[in-house]
C-alpha cells in the first residue's frame, strides 16, 4: 500500500528535484567527511582515509539515483525516459504518426458523435421526468388501422379517467389559435391550455419564474401565461426582466409568470406552443354551445404493463365513446403509445444506417493506424535487435513500444473526443426537421469509452507486434540481415490482409454513398407537376368566436364573398402576380381523402380520392396545366355545384380509354356537418367532370400521385381558408403588405404564419432525410477513401525505403525501370485489387438490404461499377507515387547507401 508520507516524498522528489538532490548529496558528503575524520584519528593518512571512505560509500553524484530507487521512483523515471524517447521516435516519422493519430481521431469522433445523436433522439429525447412512462392514448380505427387518431375528452370524462388505477398522473391540453393584440398588426400565436398539474406532470423546471401550478386554477383560472423559449427569444429578445409584464391575447391581459427552457417544446406532434395557459381559463360557452374537449397525455404508474393499462383504460374510453360518439370512430380499440413512437418510426432506420457507416469508419481508422504501426515496426526490427543485443530486457523493449503505441492512441483518442462534440451537432444542422425539437445532444460517455478503448487496444496490439516477433525470431539473423532486410512473411501477410480489408470496407461505404446520392438526386429531379418557386401559402382563420363578426360570415354566400374579397386584396398588393383560394390544397401533401361514386359504375371496392377546394385561379397560380376540357368560370365558382375537375391519375385509373369529360361523379360525404361549416345545397350531389388537369404531387414527394378531385371552394367551407400567392420575387418579403391588405377587409383579421412552397419542399422530412444520408455518407466515404489511400501510400513508401539496396542490385543487373516500378508497387496493388473484388461481392449482397432500408429501390447498383473504378484508380495512384521513387533510384547510389 502507498502511504501519504510516500506520496509526499514522491511529490517532493518530482517537483523540487534540485533541492532534494542537493540535500541527498550534502548528507552523503557529510557522512564521507565524518568517516574520513574518524579514520584519520585512528592514524590512517588523510589521502588513504579519504579513498577508503569514498570506496565504501560510493560516488556522491550517483547517490541521487539510489535515493529515487529507494523511495520507489524507479518505474516512473524509466517510463518518463520511455515517453521522451517515444516522442523523439514519433517525431522522426512525423507524417505516419500524424496520419495514425488522425485515423484514430476520425474513427472515434464520428462514432461517438453518431451514437450520441442516436441516444438523444431514440433513447432519451424528451426532457420530461419519467418520459418513458408518458403515453399517447391513440385510438386505432378498425376500418383504417394504419392511421391511429387521438381523441379528446370533456372535463367530466377527464375527471373520471383520472381515477383509473394504472394512471399516476394525467395531463390534459388543448391547442388554440389566438391573436396577439395590442401591437399595430395582430399576429397569430399557438396557445396551449394545460391542466394545472402540468408543472408536476412534466417535472421540467422553468428557465425563469415558474411553471403552471395548481393554484392557477383558483377563481376560474388566474390570467397568467408561461412562454415557450423560442417565443420568448422572438418577442422579447431573451431579456430576463420579462416576468411580471403583460401579454395581450384576444384583447385579454395575461401576466407573464415564467419562461420554459429551450429543451421544453411541448407538443411536438400537434404543434409546439408559443404560450402556455392554465386550462381553467378555457371557459365552456353556451352560445354557440361548446364544451371544450381536450387531449390527454397519460403517465402510467411505475411497473404497470402496457397490456394491463390498455385493458383498464380501454374500458373507460369505451364508456366515453357512448357519451360523446362524435369524438370517436365507429369501431376502435385503445392503444397506449409511448410518446417516443412517432420519432422512433421516422428516424430509426436513418440513424441505424448512419451508425453502421460510422462503425465502418471506426474500423477503417483502427485498421489504418494498425497498418502504419506494423509498417513502422518492420522498419525498426534492426534497431530493436541492437537494443536487445546490448542488454535491453524483453520487458523493457515491450514497455518502450507500449509507451509509443499509447502515445499515438491517446493523442488520437483525445482529438477524437474533442471532434465528436462538433460532429454530433452536424446532422441536426443538415436536417433539423428529422429530429424532435426537444432532443438535446450530449456526448454519450459509455460509447466514448468504448471507442477510445477499441482504438487504444488496436494501437497497443499492433504497436507490440514488432517486439513479439523479435523475441521469436533469431536475433543474430536479424542483425546480420541488416540492410538486406528480409521482413518476416508473417508481418507482410498481416499487412496485406489489413489493407485488403480496409479497401473492402471503403468500397462498401463508397457504394452506400453512391446509393444515397443517387436517390437524393432522383428526389430533386422528380417532376412535381407544379411550380413551387415564388409561391407561398397564406392562411386565415375566420372569427367564429366573436358573435358580432360571425354574423357577417355565417352564411355561405357571405362567407364566399368575404374570402373572395380577401383574395382580391391580396392580388392588389404590388409584387403579387396572382392569388388563388386553395383550402387544404397545398402540395406536396394535399387534399382531403373522401369516398366517391361514379355514375353507371358499380364500386367493386371502396374508392376514395383527394378532394381539393380551390378557386379557378388555383391552376394558373401553381402552373398546373389543363390537359382536356375546361376550368370553371366565376359564375360557376359562386354556385359551387354540379361540376368537378379531376387530375390525370384519376382519369387514367377510372376512365382509361374513355373520355373523362362529361362523366359524372358524386361525393356523398361532402356535407356541412356542424355549426361552423357551410355547404352548397347540392354539394353531395352528382357533378359533371368538365376538365382534366396534370398530376401534381399530393401524397408526398417520393410517392406516386393519387387520384384527385378539384371543386369550387364555395361548395364546402370550413371556418378557415388558405390562399396560394405567386409573387414576382421572394414571396415572404411581401408578408407585411399582405397582412396590411387583409386588415382592410376586416380590421381584426389576422393571417397565419405564411410559408414558402419551395422551402417547405426542402424542409420536408423525406427530402431532408435523403439529403442527410447523401451528405453524411459522402463525408464518411471520402474520409474512408482518404484513410485507405494514406495507408496504402505509407505501406508502399516504407517498403521502398527498406528495399532501396535490393532495387539498386536489380537495376545494376539490368532490370528495366518499369519492372522496378511494378515490383515496388506490387505490394499495395495486389491487396487493393483483392479488396475491391471482395468488396464488390459483399456489396452486391449487402446492397439489397441497404437499398430496402433507404427506401430507394435498386438505384445503388448502377453506381457500384463507377465507385469501384474510382477506387481502383485512386489505389493505383497511391501505390505508384511512392513506387516511382524506387524507379528513380540510381543503382550506384543505392549500392553505396549500404
Amino acid at each position: 500500500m502507498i502511504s501519504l508520507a510516500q506520496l509526499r516524498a514522491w511529490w517532493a522528489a518530482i517537483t523540487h528535484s534540485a533541492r532534494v538532490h542537493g540535500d541527498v548529496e550534502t548528507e552523503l558528503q557529510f557522512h564521507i567527511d565524518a568517516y574520513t575524520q574518524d579514520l584519520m584519528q585512528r592514524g590512517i593518512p588523510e589521502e588513504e582515509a579519504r579513498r577508503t571512505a569514498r570506496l565504501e560509500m560510493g560516488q556522491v553524484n550517483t547517490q541521487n539515483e539510489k535515493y529515487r530507487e529507494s523511495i520507489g521512483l524507479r518505474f516512473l523515471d524509466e517510463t518518463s525516459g520511455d515517453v521522451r524517447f517515444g516522442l523523439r521516435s514519433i517525431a522522426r516519422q512525423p507524417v505516419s504518426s500524424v496520419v495514425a493519430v488522425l485515423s484514430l481521431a476520425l474513427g472515434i469522433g464520428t462514432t461517438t458523435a453518431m451514437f450520441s445523436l442516436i441516444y438523444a433522439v431514440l433513447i432519451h429525447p424528451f426532457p420530461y421526468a419519467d418520459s418513458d412512462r408518458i403515453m399517447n392514448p391513440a385510438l386505432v380505427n378498425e376500418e383504417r388501422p394504419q392511421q391511429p387518431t387521438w381523441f379528446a375528452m370533456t372535463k367530466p370524462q377527464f375527471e373520471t379517467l383520472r381515477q383509473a388505477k394504472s394512471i399516476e398522473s394525467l395531463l390534459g391540453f388543448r391547442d388554440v389559435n389566438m391573436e396577439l393584440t395590442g401591437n399595430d398588426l395582430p399576429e397569430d400565436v399557438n396557445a396551449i391550455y394545460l391542466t394545472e398539474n402540468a408543472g408536476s406532470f412534466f417535472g421540467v423546471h422553468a428557465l425563469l419564474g415558474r411553471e403552471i401550478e395548481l393554484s392557477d386554477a383558483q377563481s376560474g383560472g388566474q390570467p397568467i401565461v408561461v412562454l415557450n423559449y423560442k417565443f420568448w427569444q422572438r418577442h422579447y429578445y431573451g431579456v430576463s426582466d420579462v416576468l411580471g409584464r403583460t401579454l395581450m391575447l384576444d384583447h385579454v391581459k395575461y401576466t407573464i409568470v415564467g419562461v420554459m427552457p429551450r429543451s421544453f417544446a411541448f407538443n411536438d406532434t400537434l404543434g409546439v406552443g408559443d404560450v402556455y395557459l392554465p386550462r381553467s381559463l378555457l371557459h365552456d360557452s353556451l352560445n354557440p354551445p361548446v364544451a371544450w374537449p381536450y387531449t390527454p397525455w397519460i403517465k402510467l404508474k411505475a411497473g404497470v404493463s402496457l397490456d394491463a393499462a390498455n385493458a383498464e383504460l380501454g374500458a373507460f374510453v369505451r364508456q366515453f365513446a357512448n357519451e360523446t360518439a362524435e369524438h370517436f370512430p365507429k369501431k376502435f380499440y385503445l392503444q397506449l403509445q409511448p410518446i417516443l413512437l412517432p420519432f422512433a418510426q421516422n428516424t430509426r432506420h436513418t440513424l441505424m444506417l448512419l451508425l453502421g457507416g460510422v462503425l465502418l469508419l471506426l474500423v477503417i481508422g483502427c485498421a489504418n493506424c494498425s497498418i502504419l504501426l506494423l509498417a513502422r515496426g518492420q522498419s525498426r526490427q534492426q534497431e530493436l535487435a541492437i537494443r536487445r543485443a546490448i542488454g535491453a530486457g524483453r520487458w523493457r523493449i515491450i514497455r518502450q513500444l507500449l509507451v509509443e503505441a499509447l502515445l499515438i492512441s491517446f493523442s488520437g483518442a483525445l482529438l477524437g473526443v474533442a471532434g465528436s462534440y462538433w460532429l454530433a451537432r452536424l446532422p441536426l444542422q443538415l436536417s433539423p426537421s428529422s429530429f424532435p425539437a426537444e432532443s438535446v445532444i450530449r456526448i454519450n460517455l459509455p460509447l466514448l469509452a468504448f471507442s477510445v478503448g477499441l482504438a487504444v487496444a488496436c494501437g497497443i496490439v499492433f504497436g507490440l507486434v514488432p517486439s513479439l516477433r523479435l523475441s521469436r525470431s533469431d536475433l543474430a539473423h536479424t542483425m546480420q540481415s541488416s540492410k538486406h532486410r528480409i521482413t518476416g512473411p508473417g508481418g507482410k501477410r498481416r499487412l496485406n490482409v489489413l489493407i485488403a480489408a480496409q479497401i473492402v470496407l471503403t468500397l462498401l461505404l463508397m457504394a452506400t454513398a453512391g446509393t444515397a446520392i443517387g436517390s437524393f438526386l432522383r428526389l430533386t429531379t422528380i417532376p412535381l407537376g407544379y411550380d413551387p418557386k415564388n409561391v407561398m401559402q397564406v392562411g386565415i382563420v375566420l372569427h367564429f368566436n366573436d358573435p358580432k363578426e360571425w354574423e357577417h360570415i355565417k352564411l355561405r354566400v357571405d362567407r364566399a364573398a368575404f374570402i373572395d374579397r380577401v383574395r382580391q386584396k391580396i392580388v392588389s398588393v404590388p409584387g403579387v402576380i396572382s392569388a388563388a383560394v386553395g383550402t387544404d390544397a397545398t402540395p406536396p401533401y394535399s387534399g382531403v381523402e373522401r369516398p366517391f361514386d361514379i355514375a353507371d359504375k358499380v364500386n367493386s371496392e371502396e374508392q376514395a380520392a383527394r378532394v381539393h377546394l380551390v378557386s379557378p385561379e388555383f391552376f394558373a397560380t401553381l402552373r398546373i396545366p389543363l390537359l382536356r376540357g375546361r376550368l370553371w368560370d366565376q359564375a360557376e365558382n359562386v354556385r359551387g355545384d354540379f361540376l368537378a375537375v379531376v387530375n390525370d391519375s384519376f382519369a387514367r385509373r377510372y376512365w382509361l380509354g374513355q373520355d373523362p369529360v362529361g362523366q359524372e361523379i358524386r361525393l356523398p360525404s361532402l356535407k356541412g356537418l356542424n355549426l361552423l361549416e357551410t355547404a352548397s345545397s347540392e354539394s353531395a350531389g352528382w357533378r359533371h367532370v368538365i376538365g382534366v388537369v396534370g398530376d401534381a404531387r399530393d401524397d408526398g414527394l417520393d410517392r406516386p400521385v393519387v387520384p384527385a378531385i378539384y371543386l369550387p371552394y364555395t361548395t364546402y367551407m370550413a371556418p378557415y381558408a388558405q390562399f396560394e400567392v405567386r409573387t414576382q420575387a421572394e414571396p415572404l418579403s411581401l408578408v407585411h403588405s399582405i397582412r396590411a391588405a387583409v386588415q382592410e377587409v376586416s380590421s381584426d383579421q389576422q393571417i397565419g404564419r405564411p410559408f414558402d412552397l419551395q422551402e417547405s419542399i426542402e424542409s420536408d422530412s423525406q427530402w431532408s432525410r435523403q439529403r442527410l444520408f447523401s451528405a453524411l455518407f459522402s463525408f464518411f466515404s471520402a474520409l474512408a477513401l482518404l484513410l485507405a489511400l494514406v495507408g496504402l501510400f505509407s505501406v508502399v513508401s516504407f517498403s521502398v525505403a527498406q528495399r532501396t539496396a535490393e532495387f539498386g542490385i536489380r537495376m545494376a543487373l539490368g532490370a528495366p525501370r518499369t519492372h522496378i516500378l511494378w515490383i515496388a508497387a506490387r505490394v499495395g496493388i495486389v491487396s487493393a485489387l483483392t479488396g475491391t473484388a471482395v468488396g464488390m461481392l459483399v456489396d452486391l449482397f449487402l446492397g439489397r438490404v441497404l437499398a430496402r432500408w433507404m427506401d430507394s429501390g435498386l438505384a445503388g447498383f448502377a453506381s457500384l461499377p463507377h465507385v469501384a473504378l474510382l477506387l481502383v484508380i485512386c489505389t493505383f495512384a497511391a501505390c505508384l507515387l511512392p513506387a516511382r521513387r524506387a524507379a528513380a533510384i540510381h543503382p550506384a547510389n543505392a549500392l553505396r547507401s549500404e
Partner: protein
Amino acid sequence: MKKPVDLPQGALEILILKAISLGPLHGYGILLRIQQISEGRLELLQGSFYSAIYRLESHGWIKGEWGESDNNRRAKFYQLTPAGKRQLKAETERWADMAGVVANILNVNPEQA
C-alpha cells in the same frame, strides 16, 4: 573478539529505528551507534545503509531535519515519528516472537521429541 554476523532481510531497518529511538542522530551517528551497541560485530554495508534510511523516511517512520553537527557542519538529524514508534514496537514484537519460536525449536532435545 567475537565473530561478525550477517544481517537477515529487514533487520537493518529495525536497527536503524532502534538506534534513533534513543535520540536524534545523523546518518553517520546512526551507523556508529549500531556498531557500538553490537560491539563491532555487525559489518554494515554502507551502500545499502542509506537506501534503508531513505526507505524509512519515505514511509514516514523517521523524519530528517537539518541541524548543526559537533564540528559545526550542516547535517541531517533523524528522529522517530509517532508512526515510526508504532512500527518499531510492532517489529520488535514480531522479531522477538520469531526469535523465540526459532530458539524453542533449536533447543528441543532428542528425548523431548
